[in-house]
């Protein structure tokens, strides 16, 4: 970007500045830290100049938004034409309670829905399963059948609003509930849009809501890819997720590297099935965390786009749409403090700003009370308002990639890309993503990083305001969400009635057909849809797959 003479001059002046200006002052007034390090333990220098990005070919490395390598953004107009989708992850108790929360959020200006399911649902168990004990509706809504899905979206136009569903192990079944709900309202399948998380690889690595072993899990995922581009063209059939990897304790670099490695693994699996890369790749989406180190987060999103674009090109993608990385962002749940919970509002605002400056397509802002319980109405409204202020008051959405060209940011973006490539090499040496999972590689890397960070918090090297610095003797208390205590009973009675009322023969036939399809190599999605339409429950449908595929158990390492 700069001619050689200019760079030489800058490098020379930089050295002079260091000896005549920087070092003397530092000797007089020592810096606050001996070493400044970001959350990936990279050393951060006092100053960056064009010399730190001297090898940049602007067109190759940076370019223009909406064009390869998409570093600056996936669209040419980005947030100037359409703001990111404000999508608050929500769900608790019964479908009825959560339906009211969705309507509340939509009334207050939310522009997309995002479903949080409870643990039984995440593992493909009905509310009345013995292992569901104590978990009903606790960290999400319980959806055990099509009936529940109908209630969840009652009076919500699913052809007008997009919905994201955080569901992985039993993703095909829960997606089928959503599709069947639209079918029953005579809404064409081409009119519904949204996302299923459906990223099983990161389940083994971090989130741990896996059901089946990796191989059949990947087969189900590719089934959804294939069914999706044929039948539900507006659906993102996977949201390749770094969020949970980060929450489990990884660094930003690990989040970036492991997520993209997973992404390429999904692509290879689909190509191995014989699918054309340019048919399914446009429906792949991503999901990242927005943590505390502001610039590191922005660099992470930008690097992710460039690595993905280059990698997809190498894997044979031809269409631009296959190379551009669209992603959702959620602010870092793990950064929230139970101490002085109101200050979480400030953390969330800064994290959300990083996501927007990094060019996110949709955003969830955490509520201030989430280190204590699920969010109250007031807390979630404030979280949503935070996004609205960023969007409409700050001016940051007026231009595309406003921080592009910052010497520091570009240097950091390059560094994160380089570090990611090194991780790719290590994963390849282990035989690829799945063997690396089976060897516990990712899990160990994450556990190391999280323990190291925790020790630095313990010894005060890392400051957490309100926790290890600026504590208060009298803790601030805020009101927290109360759920309807009769919820579990309502749900169990509904399940009983459903089982009594449905056409048992029709359902048995549908489950038997699914079993046969799962044992063979047919796409399972149409069979799952038949089960769901016959009001087979989540547990009953998933049990068929459990029977055929078996269950995965991970080694307990710490």
């Amino acid at each position, binding site marked *: 970007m700069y001619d050689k003479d200019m760079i030489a001059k800058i490098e020379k002046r930089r050295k002079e500045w260091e000896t005549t200006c920087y070092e003397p002052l530092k000797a007089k007034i020592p810096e606050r830290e001996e070493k400044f390090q970001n959350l990936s333990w990279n050393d951060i220098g006092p100053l960056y100049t064009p010399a730190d990005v001297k090898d940049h070919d602007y067109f190759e490395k940076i370019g223009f938004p909406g064009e390869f390598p998409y570093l600056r953004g996936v669209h040419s107009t980005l947030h100037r034409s359409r703001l990111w989708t404000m999508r608050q992850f929500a769900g608790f108790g019964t479908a009825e309670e959560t339906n009211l929360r969705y309507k509340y959020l939509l009334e207050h200006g939310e522009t997309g829905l995002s479903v949080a399911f409870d643990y039984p649902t995440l593992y493909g168990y009905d509310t009345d399963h013995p292992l569901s004990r104590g978990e009903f509706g606790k960290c999400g809504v319980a959806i055990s059948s099509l009936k529940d899905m109908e209630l969840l979206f009652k009076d919500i136009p699913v052809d007008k609003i997009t919905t994201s569903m955080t569901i992985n192990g039993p993703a095909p079944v829960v997606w089928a509930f959503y599709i069947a709900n639209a079918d029953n309202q005579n809404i064409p399948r081409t009119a519904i849009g949204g996302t299923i998380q459906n990223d099983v690889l990161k389940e083994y690595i971090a989130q741990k809501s896996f059901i089946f072993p990796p191989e059949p899990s990947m087969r189900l995922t590719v089934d959804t890819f294939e069914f999706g581009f044929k039948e539900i063209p507006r659906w993102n059939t996977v949201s390749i997720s770094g969020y949970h990897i980060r929450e489990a304790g990884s660094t930003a670099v690990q989040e970036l590297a492991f997520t993209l490695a997973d992404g390429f693994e999904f692509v290879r699996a689909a190509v191995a099935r014989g699918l054309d890369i340019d048919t399914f790749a446009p429906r792949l989406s991503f999901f990242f965390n927005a943590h505390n180190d502001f610039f590191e987060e922005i660099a992470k999103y930008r690097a992710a786009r460039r690595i993905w674009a280059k990698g997809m090109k190498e894997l044979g993608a031809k269409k631009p749409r296959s190379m551009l990385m669209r992603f959702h962002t959620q602010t870092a749940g793990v950064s929230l403090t*139970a101490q002085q919970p109101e200050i979480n509002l400030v953390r969330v605002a800064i994290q959300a700003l990083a996501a927007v400056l990094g060019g996110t397509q949709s955003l969830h802002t955490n509520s201030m009370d989430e280190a204590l319980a699920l969010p109250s109405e007031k807390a979630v409204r404030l979280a949503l308002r935070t996004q609205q202020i960023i969007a409409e008051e700050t001016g940051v959405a007026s231009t595309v990639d406003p921080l592009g060209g910052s010497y520091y940011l570009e240097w950091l973006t390059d560094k994160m890309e380089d570090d990611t490539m090194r991780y790719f090499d290590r994963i390849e040496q282990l035989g690829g993503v799945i063997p690396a999972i089976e060897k516990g590689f990712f899990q160990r890397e994450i556990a190391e990083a999280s323990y190291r960070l*925790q020790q630095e918090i313990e010894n005060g090297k890392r400051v957490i305001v309100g926790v290890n610095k600026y504590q208060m003797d009298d803790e601030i208390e805020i009101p927290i969400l109360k759920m309807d205590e009769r919820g579990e009973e309502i749900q169990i009675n509904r399940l009983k009635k459903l089982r009594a009322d449905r056409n048992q023969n029709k359902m048995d036939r549908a489950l038997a057909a699914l079993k046969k399809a799962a044992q063979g190599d047919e796409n399972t999605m149409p069979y799952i849809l038949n089960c769901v339409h016959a009001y087979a429950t989540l547990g009953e449908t998933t049990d068929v797959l459990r029977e055929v595929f078996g269950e995965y158990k991970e080694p307990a390492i710490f």
Partner: protein
Amino acid sequence: MDKKIRVLVAKPGLDGHDRGAKVVARALRDAGMEVIYTGLRQTPDMIVKTALQEDVDVIGLSLLSGAHMTLFRDITEDLKKNNMEDVLVIGGGIIPEEDIEPLHEAGIKGVFGPGTSLDDIVKFIKENVKG
């Protein structure tokens, strides 16, 4: 005390959040205790059986899903039935203030929320474990 304190770090229920459990397990090991980690998705029955087999002095429960009021209490009741009330039971996770007292009453001697220092947990165990 000459004998090493034996601790079972356990994840009851379906909750998959294991960051805290793993960090605490390592911290207790670094503090000289013998640590057994159950891994995920343990029923109260499985946890009590493991505690019995491994002859532990302490059970550390970690749960972030909100199911603590049911599952923690299931475990302490199971321990009573097995005459294992001498085992020190502590728990951590996303636990609202108002749940802490009822958990104490149910036999969860220490409840540690987000932001707890690892040192505090180590100290608590050393001071409360029955030799």
